[in-house]
């Protein structure tokens, strides 16, 4: 059981000429293995700052991040070990894969660098990773990113994140760049992997509908403050905070739009 504690974290950015910008104001939450938390909020709310602090691309101004009770090392082998355990999946699969390298190369690198398996088992492990993300190893392993569709590329990016056998996954808008008909496929894959490996997932998104169906809990971030949190259905269906209700009201919801006066949605045949 892995526990990541984000404890009373505040982050200020220096802005030239206009004083400090408070990006996160005393944010706390705990992510454990097997759990999916969605982090929602509009642009500028601080979602990505949380992801950056979790991956140590930024340091918190105050507060601490603890993995199983230990503070995250800021450098050296300790930081490296931390990053093997807590992995990130980025938004843009067109930018996060190197166009010069084959899919094999992308997946071999973390396996070799982190010495996940002995050298003579690397090839088998690469194939196993591709199979895990439901890609055909023979059809993908020697290709380069541009030869794959957006959904396939994001699957490769997920496979790469899984290579070091992480316990927690930070997924920053993992499907927002993909075509709508393949988004659910990728989210379903993440959900399956999460169950198979008992991963903890932080799902960062502005899409309330997928947040509700994909995660156990939702945290709503507004101007760097968590204004509401709770079980997914409660936060969306019985929102307490005004801002959560505003977000929900602004999101397209055809079921409500077409609901008849009796309050019952028009049934889809």
């Amino acid at each position, binding site marked *: 059981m892995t526990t990541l504690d984000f404890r009373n974290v505040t982050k200020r950015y220096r802005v030239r000429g206009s004083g400090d910008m408070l990006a996160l104001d005393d944010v706390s939450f705990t992510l454990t293995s097997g759990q999916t938390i969605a982090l929602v909020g*509009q*642009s500028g709310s601080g979602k990505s700052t949380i992801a950056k602090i979790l991956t140590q691309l930024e340091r918190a101004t105050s507060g601490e991040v603890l993995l199983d009770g230990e503070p995250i090392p800021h450098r050296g082998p300790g930081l490296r070990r931390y990053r093997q355990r807590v992995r990130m999946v980025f938004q843009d699969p067109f930018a996060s894969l190197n166009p010069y390298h084959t899919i094999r190369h992308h997946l071999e690198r973390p396996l070799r660098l982190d010495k996940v398996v002995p050298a003579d088992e690397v090839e088998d492990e690469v194939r196993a990773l591709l199979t895990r993300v*439901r890609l*055909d190893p023979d*059809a*993908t392993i020697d290709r380069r990113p541009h030869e*794959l*569709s957006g*959904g*396939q590329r994001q699957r490769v990016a997920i496979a790469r994140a899984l290579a070091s056998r992480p316990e927690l996954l930070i997924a920053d808008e993992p499907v927002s760049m993909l*075509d*709508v*008909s*393949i*988004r*659910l*496929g990728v*989210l*379903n*894959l993440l*959900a*399956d992997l999460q169950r198979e490996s008992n991963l903890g997932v932080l799902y960062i998104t*502005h899409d*309330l*509908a*997928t947040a*509700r*169906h*994909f995660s156990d809990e939702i945290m709503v971030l507004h101007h760097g403050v968590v204004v509401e949190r709770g079980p997914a259905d409660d936060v*969306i*269906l019985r929102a307490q905070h005004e801002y959560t209700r*505003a*977000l*929900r*009201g*602004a*999101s*397209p*919801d*055809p*079921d*409500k*739009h*077409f609901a008849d006066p009796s309050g019952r*949605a*028009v*049934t*889809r*045949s």
Partner: protein
Amino acid sequence: MTSETLLTVDDFSVVYDVDPPVEAVRHVSLALQRGEILGLAGESGCGKTTLAYGIQRLLKPPAVITSGRAVFHDESGEDIDINALDADAMRAFRWDKVSMVFQGAMNALNPVASIGRQLEDVFLTHRPSMGRAERREECAGLLDLVGVGRERMRSYPHELSGGMRQRVMIAMAMALRPQLMIMDEPTTALDVLVQREILEQISDLRSKLGFSVIFITHDLPLLLEISDRIAVMKDGVIVELASALDIYSDAQHEYTRRLLSSFPSLTGERGDFIRGSESTPTTTEAAL
């Protein structure tokens, strides 16, 4: 008496003449009503943008219009075959009769000119006889209309938020009171809260001014809420064209149903299959 149909697209095809040629739009026919918001839905590469550009002749080689025509039924009663216009007539036609809000339009403003000046350019080009004071007043009125406010006339683009810049682009597209505005993903880059405000504004202005809108996006739930009718496009063909309610409650084409089911419901039960049941590999990705 003007006809109720504003634009008739008949057997329209566009081919990208590369090797091998790509048939981006294949024999599309549709009739757009006056004052109607028509949603054009489909995924990347389905041809929706090519169709929208094609009917205004905004395409460049290697794109070739290989068949069909688009006829604009002007409020004067005149029928204008857009393909038959010569260069001068085309330049006068665009923006005056049909204007366009481009994808990411908010980044299309000139960073070194005030937004007031950029709005004035529209009138300088299309209404050269208009006096300076009147022109200024028109521009100020437009900024009021879209909720930016006339006091921002002298602002530069970087002094405005993304949402405000997008409103400036909408003001610019409305400047000449066109009968048709084509909007290509006008709110995709914006926050849901800002998006909602802008959509409500477009809808209000449409009722006030009576123009028609072709609204292009892949966001089907959004289209269901704002459109009168929706055309669903796939592989260059309109596979289904029906009222928003019919698309929502009684979609006929299998692809429309698949698109609809790609969006989990915000407040309804549909979408539960993500949490819980095992997923099946998606059909779209099965073929490499």
